[in-house]
Each structure stands twice: as structure tokens, then as C-alpha cells.
């Protein structure tokens, strides 16, 4: 289990992370979200033990993260962190042996992952010769080559096309099934929503949203109603609690303040003709993110 307890990190007078608390259990996928400079990377560095919190602590399986348990952790940083002048094989042997792995085992696992990511031909190619996406795959492989029990991924989907993103998601889910803890950051909130159970949204170092995605959505209260049919948009806009109506080719999206408003909307809609769709949905993570972060910026 990974526990971040009241962790605070200061760089001089700047508070990079402000009393952050969350817990990740084996088999959990935890999403750490936030705008650029929100404190995600600093949090990852604290988890990895590269930075010691100014206050609070990070506990991994009952103790501190140290070089005694680093071999069971996989870490992928946001930017490319590859030695570009050496080959894929040489790089994996280097990084793998830094985790005390046997060279034979490294090569066996490398072959498996190269096959799975469909880049077998690149084994003896220099990193600098690879495309951005393939470099990202290599970096990902370097983080998982030791079959980590804790996988820390900073922007793992950055620079990937949808097909490869799906491939990464599959692999992450495989690790989840094996009981590994996964903590990752991403700007692609649809991916976070699709396979994360727990999230934490950071803004200026503070957790502005935290908990299970379902709970976060429930707590957010605002909902969306998807309507297809002959309705009067102006009437909808006039209903108390409706704060926005968006018209698009698939119909209307009515944004409401809370669940109670949906009754009033429904009462109106059932008087209309040709209604083929009436669907009440919780707000998307993206909406919650924008609303919460925007609120913080407005307060400032």
C-alpha cells in the first residue's frame, strides 16, 4: 500500500505541494490530475523518494521508499529520459541492471514487450533513430521491465496515437490485475475516467478534488441531460436550475445545477413531440476539472 500523508513540499518560499493526502491499495489505479505546474511531478518525485517532503510523509508498504525497495518500483518521467546514443537493448540492460535484474532475464522480458508493442525490429536500433511514439514505448518498457509492484507514470500517454494509447491502457490494466499499484498523471481526462477508480486533482499544490470517480461526480452535483426531439430551447433555458443548453447535430445537451432540476426538465420534455432520447448523465471528469480549476483561478 502507498500512503501519502499530509505531504508538503516547498522550494524556497514556493509551496509546490500543500498537505496532500491519498492512499493507493494493491490493484488500484490512481490518477493524479492537474494543470501544468500544479505539483504532479513533485508529488511523483516524493513518491519515488527523490524528494523528501518538507512536512508529512510517504509510506510504501509500511516503510519509506528507499534504495532497498526501489527494485519493485517502476518509474516513467514526463519527458523523454532515454540515453539516445545507445541501442534499445543496451538501454534496457543498463536500466534493468540498475534494478539488480539478471541480464538474461532483462533480454527475455524485453523480447516479450517488444513483441507486445510491435517494435521487435527496433531492438538493436539506437534510441535517437526511433520516432517519438516508439521512444515513448521504450520508456514505458523501461519502467515495467522489472514487473513493478508500484508503477509511477508521469504523463504516460503523451505523444501517443489512440491505438498505442489503448495498448498502454491494456498493459496498465494487466498490471492492475496482477495486483500492482498504478499511479499516473495525464491531461487526457477521458482515459483517466475510463480506467481510474480514484483520482486527485491538484491545483497550485492543493488537492481540490479527491476520492473515487463516482463519488467525485456525485459530489459535483451538476448533471447533463441529453435530449433528442422537438423541444423549445428557449423554454429549457427558462427553467430554473438550467445554466446552459448546447445544441449540436446529435441533439441538445442541457446542463443543470443538480439532480432536482432534472424533474422540471423532464416535466417539460414529456409535453413535447418526437422525443427519441432523454438521458440524464453525470458531468464528465473534464467538466468537473474545468469547473473546479476555473473556480480556483476566479478566486485568485
Amino acid at each position: 500500500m502507498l500512503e501519502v500523508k499530509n505531504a508538503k513540499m516547498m522550494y524556497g518560499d514556493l509551496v509546490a505541494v500543500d498537505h496532500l493526502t491519498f492512499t493507493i491499495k494493491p490493484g488500484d489505479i490512481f490518477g493524479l490530475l492537474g494543470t501544468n505546474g500544479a505539483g504532479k511531478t513533485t508529488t511523483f518525485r516524493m513518491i519515488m523518494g527523490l524528494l523528501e517532503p518538507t512536512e508529512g510523509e510517504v509510506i510504501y508498504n509500511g516503510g519509506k521508499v528507499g534504495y532497498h525497495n526501489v527494485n519493485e518500483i517502476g518509474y516513467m518521467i514526463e519527458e523523454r529520459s532515454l540515453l539516445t546514443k545507445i541501442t534499445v537493448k543496451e538501454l534496457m540492460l543498463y536500466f534493468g541492471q540498475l534494478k539488480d535484474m539478471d541480464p538474461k532475464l532483462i533480454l527475455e522480458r524485453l523480447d516479450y514487450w517488444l513483441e507486445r508493442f510491435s517494435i521487435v525490429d527496433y531492438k538493436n536500433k539506437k534510441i535517437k533513430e526511433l520516432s517519438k511514439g516508439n521512444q515513448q514505448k521504450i520508456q514505458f518498457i523501461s519502467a515495467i521491465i522489472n514487473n513493478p509492484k508500484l508503477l509511477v507514470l508521469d504523463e504516460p500517454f503523451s505523444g501517443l496515437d489512440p491505438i498505442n494509447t489503448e495498448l498502454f491502457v491494456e498493459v496498465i490494466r494487466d498490471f492492475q490485475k496482477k495486483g500492482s499499484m498504478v499511479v499516473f498523471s495525464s491531461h487526457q481526462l477521458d482515459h483517466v475516467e475510463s480506467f481510474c477508480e480514484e483520482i486527485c486533482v491538484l491545483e497550485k499544490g492543493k488537492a481540490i478534488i479527491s476520492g473515487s470517480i463516482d463519488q467525485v461526480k456525485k459530489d459535483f452535483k451538476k448533471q447533463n441531460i441529453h435530449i433528442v426531439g422537438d423541444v423549445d430551447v428557449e423554454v429549457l433555458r427558462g427553467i430554473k436550475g438550467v445554466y446552459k443548453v448546447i445544441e449540436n447535430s446529435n441533439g441538445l445537451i442541457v446542463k443543470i445545477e443538480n439532480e432536482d432540476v432534472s424533474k422540471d426538465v423532464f416535466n417539460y420534455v414529456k409535453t413535447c413531440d418526437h422525443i427519441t432520447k432523454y438521458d440524464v448523465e453525470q458531468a464528465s471528469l473534464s467538466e468537473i476539472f474545468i469547473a473546479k480549476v476555473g473556480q480556483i483561478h476566479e478566486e485568485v
Partner: protein
Amino acid sequence: MKKFKFLVTYGLKKRVARKSFLIANIVIMLLFVAIVNLPTIIGWFGSDEDEMTNVYVDVYNETTMTAIGADLETILNEPFEGYEYYVFSEQNGTFDADAFWEDAEKNVVLVISGTVSSPSIDIYSKMPEYNQMMMSQLELLIINYQIDDYQSPTFNAIMAPDYEDPEEEAALSSLMSLLVLPLFILITMATQFVGVDIIEEKSTKAIETIIASVPAKLHFLSKIAASISFVLIQGLLILVYGGIAALVGNLSAQSGSVMPSGFDSHLLLYLSDLLPNWPVILMISLLFVVVGTLFYLVIAALFASMAVTQEDYQQFQSPLMLMLLGGFYIGIFAPLVDGYGFMKIMAFVPIFTPMVAPIAYASGIMTLLEAIIALVVMIGVLIGSLYVVSPVYKVAILSYDQTKFFKRVKSYFKKAFTKTKVTDKKDV
């Protein structure tokens, strides 16, 4: 320990198992063979000494062999192969040695005394390089006077009190080049390698993945250890090249190369005569190389950890390279301009010690005790620099601060020596 061993081996392999290492070593070997056999090479192209030198010889003859001076002049100036012309003049009265040493015009004085059967010849010479030739010719001449009672004359060669053998000076100068050049090459190579290695990992951000797996201190020490191992391997190879150069020199001497006067077949043989304590010099030099290189490596590693890009590092390391170059020039030129005092002082300045102290000791400017003191000072500075640099390296290696150099340095030192919270992961 396992990771440290792996990092050192990895770093060493990265340097040695390369084409560039092979090419560099071929060049170094050729350079060595050329330097050590420089006199032979010069001999192939002939000598520049085409000006006639007049040798003025005064003869104080107390024997009955009255014509010996004139005869010697005739013999020495015939068959006129050399570039010296001997001008003999017979002198009466008593020879005054002090006056002769102060007389700028006279070069040699022969004081011939004793009897025909047992002559004694004192040679007062400001040009001792001609003594041997005069002695052999005098011996042949005296046989003519002795008829059937042949007795070898007794020769006594007397040099000026302040005489300095030009051959010895030339040899010492060669020694400077022979010692300073490999020192300079080794320290420069090692400094470059450690810096480039660290900045390569840092500029590609791979350092974060590496430091997540091994402590920054271990990473720092492994880089130093890999580079010093490289220096030792390269140093050993240079010694082998010295041996090869000597072998080539011997072979060329046996094949009858034309040598300029005053030189031995190759410098190494000559230098071994000149420096009978060469094993001690070699040992002291090796110690200075190891300790000095370690010191430079520590500083280079610090600069590399503070740099963010390759360009940054090139700028940061410039002062270090200038210091190295300064030591190189002091080592070579200070003895040539009689700057012994200056050289001795510089031998105790740690940044110059690795380059200057071995030369100062080899050329007799420093005693063994002084060399040991300089070494102890250097070791002290090395330990001190390790103590200071190690925590700063831990702070700087994961930082991508791009503020101005001095501001950056100040900030890293401040962070390192206030209660640091950075990269303080426990190494269990």
C-alpha cells in the same frame, strides 16, 4: 556495492570498448615513438649546425715535447671534417685558473706537465664536448715522443665551477615533455570523460530514472571510479608505448642511423643514465597522476552536475581546462627559464600540483620530502573537495535550474549545506 560495481564496469566499458579509444591510442603510441626517437628522426634530416666554431686553446707546456701544441692544432684541423677550427697558442708562465674561467675569449687550456715517459695533462675546458677528441689525439701524439717507453698520459679534466652540461639540460627538457605530455593527456581525457558522461545522462533526463534506482552519491563515486580506472589503464598503456618506443629506438640504433653529436641512440636510455632513481620518480609521478586526476574529476563532476546542457558544461569546464593548461606550461617552461622557485611554489598549489610536482621532483627542484608534502596536501584537498562536492552533487544533479552560473552555484551550496531535503533517499 553490486550496483556500484555495475556502474563502474559500465562506465569503463563505455570508454574502452570504442573505436575512438583504439584510434586515440594508435595516435598516442605513434606520438610517443616519435618523441622518444626525436634525435634519430632529426639525424635522418641532417644537422642544422653548419656554422664554424672556433675553439681557442692555450697550451702551458712544462715538458720537453715542445711541438705538441702545434702538432695537435694540425691534427685536429685536418682532415677538416668537423665544424670546429682549433686555434692553439703556446703560453709561458704560470697558468691562472680563475683568470681563465673569467676570460670570455679562451675556451680550453692544456697544462702539460711531468716527463715524456709519464706525462700528466690537465684540461681546463669550457667546452667539454671536445675533450674526448683532444685526449685521444694527444695520446697518439705523445706515443711519438715516447718511442719505446710507452706510458699512457694521465688526463685530468676540470670544468668551470658553474658549468652546466648542455646535454643534460637538453635531456631534462626532453624529460619535461615526456612526463608532462602524458600527465596532461591523461588528466584532460579523464576530466572530459567524466563530465561528458554525467551531462549526457543529465541533459537527456535519463538521470532521473538512474537516480531513482541508485543513490546520487553512489552515482557520483561510480563515475569517478570508472574514470580513474580508465586513467590507470591508459597510463599503463602509455608505459607500454614507452617500452615500444625504446625498442624502436634500439632497433634504429642497431641499423646504423646517423645521430647528431651529443645524443644517445634514444632518449629513454639516456634518461635512465641521467635519472638513476627513475623507479621512485615513476612511482611518485603515478601517485600524483592518480590523486591529481581524482581531484580534477571531482571538480569536473561537480560542474557537470550543475550544468543543464552540453553547451552549459563546455562553458563551465573552460576554467578547469585553462588551469590544466597552465599547469602544463609551467611544467614545461618554468625549468627552461630557470623559474625553479616559481615552479616549486606552484607544485604546492593543488590545482597545479598534479602537473608541476612530478616534473619539479624529477628535475631535482623538489626533494623527495617536499614531493611527499605536496602529495599529502593534494590528498587533503581531494578529501576536502569530496566532502564538499558530494552533497552539492546530490542537490544539483536533479535540478534543471537555468539561472546565471554564480547564482546557481550559490543556490546549490545553500541547499546542500542547509538541512537538505533533496534526494535524501535512504540507501539501505
